[in-house]
């Protein structure tokens, strides 16, 4: 025993305030209440102030793009870490949503306030139906199929010259003013973020996570895995289609670039940086990655190099992600103790 007494190890303990504020007793003290509310208030307040704090129209536009990627990252994280489906379908969802909204707006003359919800629901239905065949399968099939659809759709549009062909659909109505444009998507990000967080903690979220852990056991419990995967894909593709429909009204144009691979890859990078499985992490990841990519425009073609280096650095040195790290530091403290 004497030998080991000079050995030390770092101990990690939950902060007292975390333990106290977990129960209903949190309501009895301002300190504990604020411990709970502070991160949420900072996030909500920060997002709401953001458009006002931006120096120019250009950066306000960047915020809108960031929000689109944030929605895609949220949808990716939800599918990958709560249902166990690795989706590369960001471009597929965006493309479907944006073309539907564009057609509704140009051919039927519906205003954005109608096209966006319709495109969201209709797009989610279409995406889910198209992805249905690979839902009973396990493994990489879902990822591959979701990756193939946008490529396929782009070539079909190009070859048959439908839906505007390579020129895209022009003359789409924009939002009434730029404040509406900004706050619509920011409120949507907040609503969907807290909504998904609530969802994964409900009973249905429990089934989702069980499907991810061991789908055979779920099946053995008499639950249809395919049914729940369908619901999850519907939710996730709905989030993506909403982003796509919004994008169309932002750019006033729908074209082949809405089916570009960026929409599939960048959300994954954002999820890695933000901390996978936290839902809020990927949103923050998008808020870091997309502006960085804008700032790096000054470097011209070297942009991608720096971008890749930043990503690599994150993966090597902080592969857990910002949010996982941050949550740990917020909730726990460390001290050296003798053993």
């Amino acid at each position: 025993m004497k030998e080991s007494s000079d050995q030390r190890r770092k101990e990690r303990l939950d902060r007292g305030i975390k333990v106290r504020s977990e129960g209903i007793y949190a309501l009895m003290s301002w300190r504990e209440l604020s411990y709970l509310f502070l991160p949420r208030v900072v996030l909500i307040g920060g997002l709401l102030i953001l458009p006002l704090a931006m120096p120019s129209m250009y950066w306000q536009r960047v915020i809108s793009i960031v929000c689109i990627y944030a929605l895609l990252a949220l949808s990716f994280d939800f599918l990958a870490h709560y249902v166990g489906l690795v989706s590369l379908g960001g471009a597929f969802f965006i493309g479907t949503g944006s073309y539907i909204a564009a057609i509704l707006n140009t051919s039927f003359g519906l205003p954005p306030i109608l096209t966006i919800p319709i495109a969201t629901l209709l797009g989610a239905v279409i995406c889910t139906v198209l992805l249905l065949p690979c839902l009973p399968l396990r493994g990489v099939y879902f990822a591959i199929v979701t990756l193939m659809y946008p490529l396929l759709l782009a070539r079909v549009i190009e070859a048959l010259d439908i839906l505007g062909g390579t020129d895209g659909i022009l003359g789409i109505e924009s939002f009434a003013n730029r404040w509406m444009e900004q706050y619509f998507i920011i409120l949507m990000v907040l609503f969907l973020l807290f909504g998904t967080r609530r969802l994964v903690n409900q009973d249905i979220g429990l089934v989702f996570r069980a499907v991810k852990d061991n789908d055979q056991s779920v099946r053995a419990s008499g639950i249809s895995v395919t049914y729940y995967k369908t619901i999850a894909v519907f939710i996730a593709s709905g989030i993506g289609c909403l982003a796509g429909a919004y994008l169309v009204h932002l750019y006033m144009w729908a074209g082949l670039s809405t089916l570009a691979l960026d929409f599939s890859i960048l959300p994954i990078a954002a999820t890695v940086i933000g901390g996978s499985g936290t839902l809020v992490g990927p949103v923050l990841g998008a808020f870091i990655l997309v502006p960085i990519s804008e700032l790096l425009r000054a470097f011209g073609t070297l942009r991608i190099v720096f971008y890749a280096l930043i990503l690599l650095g994150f993966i090597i040195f902080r592969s857990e992600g910002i949010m996982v790290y941050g949550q740990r530091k917020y909730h726990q403290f460390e001290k050296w103790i003798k053993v």
Partner: protein
Amino acid sequence: MLEARQLMVFYENMLALNNVSIRCEENQIVGVFGANSAGKSTLMYTLSGIMEDIRKKEEMAGGERISVLGDITYLGEGIMGMKPSKRAKKGIVLCPERRRIFKECSVLENLRIGGYLATPAQAKDTLEYVFNVFPALQKLQKRIGGFLSGGEQQMLAIGRALMAQPKLLLLDEPLLGLSPLIQAVLVRATREIRDEMGISIIVTEQYARPVLPIVDYAFILENGTAVLEGTRDELMDNPDIRSAYFGIK
């Protein structure tokens, strides 16, 4: 041959091994017995170095912090903190719990992967020896690992470990979920391996009775603490141990 002193392993703040000291002499079969969560697998992972690997992975992923403290001496050399691959090269080879064979490879391929560290001549000899000890495997050479029965898979796992030319073989629950008949075959084979190849063996089990006849020395773990140790006969004389671990009234 191997001596571990005052091993302490923490999973975050949970103490998995508390001041465990064990020893294995040359050409000995040492048993480590204990219930679930007694720390048997943790001990095996720590001795084989797999714990270093798990620790690093957890650290990268931001999971729980694993602290390993203490001191392991193997053939007069401290091996604490050494990588598992390096320990395997030095002759400490783990045959993991639940077998972990390569399910999509055939029996022969499994064995050949195990022989990565062996010279071609050694591999050939050992392969012959494995088929000699486990004749059942000889007929199944072409069979895919995942299609083997539990007992055959365990034989394959031990065979694969032997192919790595161990000096000290760590068998983690080799009898898990097997019928008494197969258990007897494996126990006999374990003794043969020790006698014929001169390999020291540390074997863990929950239920000590099947392996008891072949162990020279044994440790009893309870909740991460080594509560008792002794030769086979010494343990047999202890009435509590007899009923708890050996099932003999």
